[in-house]
């Protein structure tokens, strides 16, 4: 099992969710996060004074999937989340040791 973590632009959530559904993903967790990467924030002007937006708002998606789904999933997320502009986000893949479905007590891939 793998845990895919995707940090994307907030306005890309619907597109990514649709792409994931096509890939047969049956569940995911979304959180509102803030951060910076190579984009390093950006400058804005408020009442004539320039200021740095140090942390840019993003969405973090966490998707637990059977390992064999990962090769199909990564390009699907990338295609859906891409705008070509700086700050499009990142995708991380982690090994997932265990999963438990709370209601039934199922474990492993059956719990996903």
């Amino acid at each position, binding site marked *: 099992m793998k845990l895919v973590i995707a940090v994307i632009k907030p306005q890309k959530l619907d597109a990514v969710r649709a792409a994931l559904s096509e890939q047969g993903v049956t569940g995911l967790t979304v959180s509102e996060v803030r951060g910076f990467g190579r984009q390093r924030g950006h400058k*804005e*002007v*408020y*009442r*004539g*004074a320039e200021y740095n937006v140090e942390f840019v708002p993003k969405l973090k998606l966490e998707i637990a999937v059977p390992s064999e789904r990962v090769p199909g999933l990564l390009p699907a997320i990338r295609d859906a989340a891409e705008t070509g502009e700086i700050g499009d986000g990142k995708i991380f893949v982690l090994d997932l040791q265990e999963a438990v479905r709370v209601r039934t007590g199922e474990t492993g891939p059956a719990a996903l």
Partner: protein
Amino acid sequence: MAAAPFVRVLFAAAPVASFGAFFVGAAHAQDAPAQEIQPAAEATVVIFNTLLFLMSGMVVMFMAAGFCMLEAGMVRAKNAATICLKNLSLYAVAGLMVWLLGYNMIYGIEPGGLLAPFAFFYQGDDGDPAGLGYGAYSDWFFQMVFVATAASIVSGALAERIKLFPFLIFVAILTGIVYPIVASWEWGKGYLDAEWDFADFAGSTLVHSTGGWAALAGAVVLGPRAGKYEGGRVHPIPGSSLPLATLGAFILWLGWFGFNGGSQLAFGSIEDAFSVAKIVVNTNMAACGGVVAALLMTRFSYGKVDLTIVMNSAIGGLVAITAQPLEPAIWQAVLIGAMGGVIVTVTVPLLDRARIDDVVGAIPAHLFCGIWGTLIVPWTEDGPTFLGQFVGVVMVGAFVTAISFLLWAVLRFTIGVRAEPEHETLGLDKSELGLEAYPEFAKG
């Protein structure tokens, strides 16, 4: 419908035939010269004048809500409830002070004088309605809501760091003594009116600059909010609710029709009624000019439009036209207001450069645009001179600034004006009121 009794009074009181003639005359204005209009009966004149004061006064009273929303939207959420309380209580304090002392000081002055004798507690005298021309209490009410406006200007500039009670003490003296003295010089037929032909129709200088000078002195004595100018740089502190602030700007815009329109002081003749209409149009167009000027200027200077500066510029345009909203042609009103917008857009960052922290932009909009509006009066009105206007601006500025500095300094070294640093960090809502303005919203 509220309008129905109004119309009935109109037709019952004035000879119906004359109104018929008026409408016919208006319809055929191109073919024949307009026919003579019979003047309204004496009672009608008094009733209409009184009605103007009351209706306008109620609209101006609502400007207190406009200031409150503008300020609540432009402070951080942790100070929003406190600024609401300050606005509510300053309005009440202003009312009490105008009753206690203020009104008598404005109108108790002798012609050409500088200071009226102190006479306590207003008593309306409706004994001679024909001589007065309006109900005495209606004028008192109209003047009272003007005083509250001057005080509201101060609260926005000093938001997020001033303690409640020192602020209210200042407001009491401002509304009971300082503003009434200034207003008496002109509207009480005192020194500026008698010696300089100073003209300030609805109070660009008398109301708005007075509030602005008091706010400027307070902002200097009080110092900036913690962190605003840390490390020699300007750190913007965005407000908690721009929609709320925009609502406030709209409410003020609406209130200004009463502020300027009511300042015609009479509604009992065709000339007066038409003057009020022209004033309302000019007032509106000046605000339009201010908004569009700031819209374009911020777009071209910063790449993006700055909503809060555009809001301030609507108010700046309104303040600018307030000194003379009747005489300008519409295009002149638009230009006067647009220049107000330019002044706001330029001076908001300049104040930051001077390390004067004006939270809501009250000083650019009310003080600087008030000066501009007062100085430009001779452009459209015959009589007032540039020199006379200048003397009025300087005299009011020197008096209000000096007495405000003195007051703020006395308050600072006795009971203290500035909130404790830890209270400021925590937010005044928790330290002054023990609550949060928006307890069910997560902290960003």
